[in-house]
């Protein structure tokens, strides 16, 4: 570290931190001093590709198995995530639908959970900005309010997509995605490989290929291998950040502190620091994902230009959310779903159905005697979610009645969706959450706690675009 004290100390380099910094740097004075502490290292995409090709690379030593970074106490849940520069941008699959406006008002409209202290309109301008920064590909005409074209054209439909779009209009759209539909700055066109965690052709937005410019900014000092584990509270302020680097425990001072690690570690840092807020660590979870294979009679489902071609909203919003969860359909044409019957190889479609869940106290993060490795407990799904699963199984045949369906095959629920949500929930009332609408801690007013941990409720939609927009919003409104 070049200094003992910084204007801003940021923990983590994933979406939440990077988009926050992008906006902050656009407003900060030229002499501002910013320290970024990243627990991992820079593992370039080119080197990740070598590892996938089983070629030697010195960088593979930087891969940190998620199973060793947390104590996962669930028998049915997995929580894959990536550490290092760019965080989970290195393993996400690039799905960027916006939330629906009603996702922010679950209590008022449906009597479920709590309302967010922000709404769709608050985030609208920042959604556009995040979409521009990610060069999102998407259609004109969406189920959520959005005017104009996306930065890149929509991906191509398959045969099944065309039929469903014709029937359902903007309730069935080409998926808005950060998997490029055209070559763009720093990225190639998606080749539909369906192995998006490490994109074979670098078509997916990552922090590394983003051209955000935040870590090249002269005001920013980026330190790798620095694992933050606690904070020093003095009164209602954070004075220091504690971390370990190269086996040595250290601390650094800051005027403003930003926790942008994933929800498990943001929670762990707060608990280690002695935060007594009862909601810290509570209600962690994610959507429930179930795959259904749709066998088609005498219809090839060829076409499509990315892994998830389309999103269906036919089971998403409405009064049913008083009783059971929203469901977002992700429609994909992945190579592993080809059929083997002679002449029917491509006569299949596959839907991944994402069901929102609600934050339950039974699902939580708890710091341990090992200050670096928290316990993660996920002990149950809500009945609200399971009822939606049952409803989907009843409704889907009718929804698909415009297709020549031979049979439907439902697969077992996935153990993960790659979305870690909750643990530092946002609330208007300090008694009902950890952070306020700007993701500033209700008690420690120089502390931001960013990311999907701040979501008040989960939504059925993929979280990354929304958490990125929230970071832009917070930095814009506060500085």
């Amino acid at each position: 570290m070049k200094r003992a004290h910084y204007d801003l100390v940021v923990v983590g380099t994933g979406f939440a931190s990077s988009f926050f910094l992008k906006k902050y740097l656009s407003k900060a004075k030229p002499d501002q001093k910013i320290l970024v502490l990243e627990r991992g290292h820079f593992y370039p995409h080119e080197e990740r590709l070598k590892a996938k090709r089983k070629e030697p690379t010195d960088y593979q030593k930087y891969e940190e198995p998620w199973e060793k970074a947390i104590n996962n106490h669930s028998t049915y849940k997995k929580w894959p995530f990536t550490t290092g520069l760019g965080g989970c941008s290195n393993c996400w699959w690039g799905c960027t639908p916006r939330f629906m406006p009603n996702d922010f008002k679950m209590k008022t409209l449906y009597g479920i959970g709590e309302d967010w202290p922000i709404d769709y309109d608050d985030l609208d301008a920042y959604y556009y900005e995040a979409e521009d920064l990610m060069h999102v590909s998407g259609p004109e005409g969406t189920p959520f309010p959005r005017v104009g074209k996306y930065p890149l054209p929509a991906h191509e439909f398959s045969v099944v997509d065309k039929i469903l779009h014709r029937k359902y209009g903007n309730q069935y759209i080409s998926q808005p995605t950060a998997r490029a539909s055209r070559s763009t700055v720093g990225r190639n066109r998606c080749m539909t490989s369906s192995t998006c965690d490490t994109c074979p052709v670098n078509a997916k937005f990552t922090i590394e290929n983003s051209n955000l410019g935040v870590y090249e900014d002269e005001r920013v000092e980026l330190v790798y291998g620095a694992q933050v584990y606690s904070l020093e509270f003095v009164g209602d302020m954070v004075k220091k950040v504690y971390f370990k680097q190269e086996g040595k425990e250290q601390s650094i001072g800051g005027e403003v502190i930003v926790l942008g690690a994933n929800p498990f570690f943001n929670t762990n840092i707060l608990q280690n620091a002695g935060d007594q807020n009862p909601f810290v660590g509570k209600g962690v979870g994610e959507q429930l994902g179930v795959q259904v294979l749709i066998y088609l009679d005498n219809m090839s489902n060829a076409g499509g230009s990315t892994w998830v071609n389309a999103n269906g909203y036919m089971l998403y919003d409405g009064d049913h959310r008083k009783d059971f969860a929203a469901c977002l359909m992700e429609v994909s044409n992945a190579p592993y779903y080809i059929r083997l019957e002679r002449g029917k190889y491509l006569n299949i479609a596959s839907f991944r159905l994402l069901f929102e869940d609600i934050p339950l106290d039974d699902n939580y993060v708890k710091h341990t005697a090992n200050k670096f490795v928290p316990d993660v407990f996920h002990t149950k799904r809500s009945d609200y979610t399971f009822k939606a699963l049952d409803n989907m199984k009843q409704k889907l045949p009718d929804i698909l009645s415009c297709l020549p369906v031979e049979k439907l095959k439902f697969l077992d629920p996935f153990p993960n969706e790659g979305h870690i949500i909750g643990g530092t929930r946002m609330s208007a009332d300090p008694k009902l959450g950890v952070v306020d609408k700007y993701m500033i801690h209700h008690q420690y007013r120089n502390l931001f706690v960013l990311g999907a941990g701040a979501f008040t409720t989960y939504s059925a939609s993929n979280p990354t675009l929304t958490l990125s927009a929230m970071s832009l919003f917070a930095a814009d409104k506060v500085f």
Partner: protein
Amino acid sequence: MDRRKFLILTGVAIGGVAIPSSVFFVSNSVKKYAVLFIERELDYLILEPGSVVKYVDEYFTQTNNLLERVKWKAMYYLHVGWQKSDQILELIKYYLLSSDFFINKMDESKMVKYLGLYSPYKSPVPNPFAYTLHPPSEIKNG
């Protein structure tokens, strides 16, 4: 083949572990029946001579389900097909994905040639559904 198994086969599963090559030893008998399965299930295709053997050799260096393998001989003689065995389903699906079958637009009159184990990171075989093989101009309105 589900997504998880596919990711393991293509070497991209998150949190995968390195497995010593000695673990991959498979008897010639097992490989023989794997070849026979493919040839029987795809008997309507013209398979390039020797290519299935080469594929099976390479396939078994990438998978690690030893317990299931020992049943293959029995499954072959009991006429168990891919409809009842995920192992056989995966073996045959992965063979087609590793060949030029989809590049040739599933033309059964053309000889099927093995191009190397399917991998988005190495092989020339694209997603069989996608625009690279089926450009938008060819996609009907359904």
